[in-house]
């Protein structure tokens, strides 16, 4: 077979492959699109006239209702109260450990990295009972039961403790690619450890920090589990846990729920469309070492 014929054959094959992947891509998006479509219709209409009926009423009324019943500002604020400090502290602590481990040669360096990375991989189920008890006991100790338990700070801390491992791993891989001469010249100039971190390394870490920030924000914002088990007051929980408020006791208005889901997904969708590159590179930094 000549090269040209082979090339043409490959071209035909590529079209078939592309079409195949394309059909599946539409199937992939379909559940989201269907939910979006339904969120513009009243549930009563679907009950009365069937799933595939043409819309009679079509509009944003479910959204207005959902915003009202979900007490959107309160729960969005709750989400921010957990997500913002958690992301900030994760990046701060991750960068500190990564900095020490990759810029100074202590004997415990590799051991530290192993400890943090392995900790990140442990199943959350393994720590849940003691953490729960610990929060209550620390609360009793300081005379306020809700010091960590049922407080956004408790949720922040557990996120930080777990995600720190990932941040450390990613940042230390990245720092290894930064020439050590940069650090050495700083040390020759007599810079303190703090200045070395703050003025020399931190500015160089901006790209991976941006990626990690985007990734961590989506992860922590999306989480509903820790808030559900470590908080007992519903009004303090983040928006992802609050979606349950839209399920009725006897009958659930599913289309209202759909509108709520779309609202809760909005921040991550913005991230998805606006900061896509950072999101992708954040996710992949960890898997392939820089």
């Amino acid at each position, binding site marked *: 077979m000549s090269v040209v014929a082979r090339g043409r054959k490959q071209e035909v094959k590529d*079209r078939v492959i*592309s079409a195949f*992947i394309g059909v599946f*891509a*539409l199937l*992939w998006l379909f*559940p*989201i699109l*269907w939910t979006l479509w*339904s969120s513009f219709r009243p549930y009563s209409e*679907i009950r009365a006239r069937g*799933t595939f009926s043409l819309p009679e009423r079509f509009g944003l009324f479910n959204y207005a209702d959902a915003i009202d019943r979900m007490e959107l500002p309160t729960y969005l604020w709750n989400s921010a109260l957990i997500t913002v400090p958690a992301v900030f502290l994760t990046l701060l602590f991750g960068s*500190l*450990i990564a900095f*020490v481990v*990759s*810029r*100074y*040669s202590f004997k415990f360096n*590799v051991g*530290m990295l*192993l*400890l943090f990375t392995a900790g990140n*991989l*442990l*199943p*959350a*189920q*393994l*720590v*849940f*009972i*003691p*953490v729960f*008890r610990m929060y209550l006991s620390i609360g009793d100790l300081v005379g306020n039961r809700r010091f960590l338990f049922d407080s956004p700070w408790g949720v922040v*801390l557990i996120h930080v*403790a*777990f995600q*720190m*491992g990932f941040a450390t791993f990613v940042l230390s891989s990245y720092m290894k690619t930064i020439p*050590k001469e940069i*650090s*050495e010249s700083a*040390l020759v100039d007599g810079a*303190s*450890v703090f200045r070395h*971190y703050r003025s020399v390394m931190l500015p160089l870490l901006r790209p991976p920090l941006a990626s990690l920030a985007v990734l961590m924000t989506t992860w922590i*914002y999306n989480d*509903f589990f820790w808030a559900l088990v470590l908080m007992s007051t519903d009004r303090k929980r983040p928006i*992802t846990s609050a*979606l349950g408020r839209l399920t009725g006791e006897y009958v659930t208005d599913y289309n209202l729920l*759909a509108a709520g*889901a779309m609202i*809760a997904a909005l921040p991550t969708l913005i*991230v*998805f469309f606006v900061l896509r590159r950072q999101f*992708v590179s954040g*996710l992949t930094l960890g*898997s*392939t070492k820089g």
Partner: protein
Amino acid sequence: MGRSAAALSDGKLKRTTAASPKRPRRRRAFSRSDRFTLGVFVGVPTAIHLLLVWIPATLTIYLSFTYWTGINYSDITWAGLANYDNIFTKTPLFYDAVRNNVIWLVWFALISTPAGVLLAYQIDRQIRGHRFYQSAYYFPVVLSLAVTGIIWNFMLRSDGFINGLIGRDISNAVSFFGNYDINIYVIMVIASWRHVGYIMLLYLAGLKAVDPTLREAAAIDGATEWETFRKVVLPAMRPVNIIIVVITIIESLRAFDIIYVIYGTSAGLPILGVLVFQNIAGEGASMKGAAYAVILFVLSIGPIIAYLRQQFREDVS
């Protein structure tokens, strides 16, 4: 001065520094304030990490050998292997859960992960529409599982899309979540919806690092695309392959959120990750939940070590 870990990990650099006259100054004398700074830099994060991850993990292992209501510390009594004995010999649900975890793993290993890898390969070849495809497939990855649960409920509930499509109304609808014969596979479809995009992304990043001339050479030698993928790309991607295998196993073991979203902690679909919580809430007096968590942990040790070995190969040697 202040030789970095990066230098240590790299054989060549090590030799050059070792030969240089700088060697005697390897141990830098830190000033007192520097020592303090370093102590805080390392100490604070490590303390938080140990206190909230490793110490609780150890305590759970201890608790799995006890009876405890979870209220007063003085009530803890030693149970020996009783909790494990109860799980292995008196809890048929445990074996149902194991079966579901195995189905999960096999499905991921044979279907979802390979699909993600092949998808990544095709998208990396920049077939027509690859940008759109990439976005479409990783869209589900950015959604919260709380949202994912609601979306799939729209497809699968009794008056949902699929039942409408196959012409069933509420009275004779297929119960996708309630039917024990099929619900694990229904869940697998939902889990794959996320997993495929995730694997695709990880693999795409790895593929970017494969030398394109390798592929061109293979093409000139007359290899088909499939041969190129199997004999050139796949072997060159060995490190990423290991990571992806490990991620597949770990994700299958700790699978939990999506089931929790749909079933809560009820036994609607038993799986190891959920049994942990069911037993904390329900049978308070034993620490069976802790024992389940430990079983989960023991099963994950292998893949965790494999992951660490892959990632820290050069650092440790």
